[in-house]
């Protein structure tokens, strides 16, 4: 009996090992597919040839020349401004909305809740042309402001939904306890509710930032002649060939975002841990 059991166990273990190695191989291949073009971007930012066809030789030239490429840098700054402003705005609006929808019952709540999915679901191009026609019918000159408005419109629902998911798991009793102990409405919000939902706000904000920096289509319809983001500038350049200094700038952005994301992940983990400890030891 024991012998058969041991055999079955050994077979199970072998099967699991086989499955695991197959899973790891397959997973790595998919990740390779996702990262292949990024590796090309990094590699070709050091290429001596201007043409992005084959790797000719190693140089740091583009890393120097990118700092004197005015139009490229300008579009990079525009991207940062649009992403920063739209993230801050959508975090404020989205968080307020999520808390309000959690706290209050009101007539159009389900309508509002379903409407959040409209900007998420409709194709970006439809969203882009609708805003273009809207702004130009009102004779609003498109530029930085219209791009920020557009970016808030597509990222705010994501923030609201992320924060709302976080509040749903949050204990109402905590707030009641704070109020029973004499804390006012705003005091309760800032000292009890806000810290609880902070991880949701941070991940919602990160999502907003990511979506804004990566956006092409909606920016393509709402940008102005002197206000273009980096993806739009590169899209324009791509017709004649993207210069390698754009690759160098993109590589720099990869490094920057990796640092930001890792540190935000750390902060988030620490917060979750801290909250965990607090609830364990009352």
């Amino acid at each position, binding site marked *: 009996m024991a012998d058969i059991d041991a055999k079955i166990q050994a077979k199970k273990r072998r099967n699991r090992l086989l499955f695991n190695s197959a899973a790891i191989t397959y*997973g790595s291949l998919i990740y390779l597919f996702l990262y*292949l*073009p990024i590796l090309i*971007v990094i590699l070709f930012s050091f290429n001596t040839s201007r043409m992005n066809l084959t790797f000719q030789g190693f140089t740091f030239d583009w890393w120097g020349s990118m700092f004197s490429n005015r139009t490229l840098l300008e579009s990079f700054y525009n991207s940062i401004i649009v992403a920063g402003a739209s993230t801050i705005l959508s975090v404020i*609006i989205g968080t307020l909305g999520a808390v309000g929808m959690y706290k209050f019952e009101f007539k159009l709540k389900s309508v509002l809740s379903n*409407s959040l999915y409209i900007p998420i679901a409709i194709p970006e191009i439809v969203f882009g042309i*609708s805003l273009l026609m*809207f702004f130009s019918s009102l004779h609003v000159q498109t530029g930085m402001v219209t791009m920020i408005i*557009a970016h808030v419109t597509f990222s705010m629902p994501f923030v609201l939904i992320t924060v709302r998911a976080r509040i749903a798991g949050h204990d109402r009793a905590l707030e009641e306890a704070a109020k029973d102990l004499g804390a006012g409405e705003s005091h309760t919000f800032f000292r009890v509710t806000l810290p609880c939902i902070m991880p949701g706000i941070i991940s919602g904000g990160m999502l907003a930032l990511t979506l804004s920096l990566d956006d*092409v289509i909606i920016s393509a319809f709402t940008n102005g002649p002197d206000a273009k983001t980096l993806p739009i500038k590169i899209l324009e350049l791509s017709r004649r060939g993207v210069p390698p200094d754009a690759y160098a700038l993109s590589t720099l952005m990869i490094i920057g975002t990796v640092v930001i994301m890792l540190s935000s992940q750390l902060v988030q983990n620490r917060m979750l841990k801290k909250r965990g400890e607090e609830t364990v030891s009352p």
Partner: protein
Amino acid sequence: MRGKFSNAGERILAAIRKFLALIVMVGPTGFWLVLFVFVPLVFVVVISFMQRGDYGVEAGFSLQGYLSVFSALYGKTIGKSLLLALETTALCLLFGYPFAYCMTKAPKKMVSFLVLLIMMPFWVNSVIRIYAWRTLINDNGYLNMLLEALGLNTIHLMRTNGAILLGMVYELLPFAVLPLYNSLEKIDPSLLEAASDLGAKRHRPFLRVVLPLTMPGVFASTIQTFIPCLGLYYICNMMGGGTDLYIGQVIERQFLSEAHNWPFGSALSIILIVLTIVMMKQYTRIGSLEDMA
């Protein structure tokens, strides 16, 4: 008497305060959605029924936009675009499903890192990533070098519909994986064990238990790939030959390029809106909207 009055007064005051709090908190969201989502979409509907003008549109009723949409020329464009979206969705599910399945088997601690790894490519904007694919797939590129080294025939991919399909799958695969992962992760592993303990053959527990339980995820992934695929015009521009256009490219040209035919572009967009609404309606029958985002 006095007590009663002040009670009523307090109640009114509390109601006013609640109302004000509601306006301050939910108001901005509602205002934003109405002004920048609903009103612009109304513009699309209205303009689709107007006359074409020098600057895109002119006052006056016309069905010309819709008549052009259903003409033979653009009927072919729409059919072609739907086919591309279908192929993209099928490939994303085919590659994404096993990948999401592998992710659920990874150690719990690693999962958030693995999800982060899927999101990370977004931080390098997709234009430059798609552009980098051209380096890989051009006739003398690394893909063909690899094929040659393996003793295989080289392929001509650049500026073909195959290159567009590659770009679409590349761009949309992450969006397909995440809903699939969410639905797979919810399955109780003991269900699977029970199924195989009861003597179900190897593929049976998968077909009978896992796949039906993850249908909402499969549907969500389908929506997340099928619909955006119809709009990603810049991938068609960068990867394709530019001879015969897809629906997204045709729409774009009515607004950003020489064509300037807003009613036609709007009418084409209405098709995409209707398609989105129909798919979302079907989806809400089997899955919740929360799982989509």
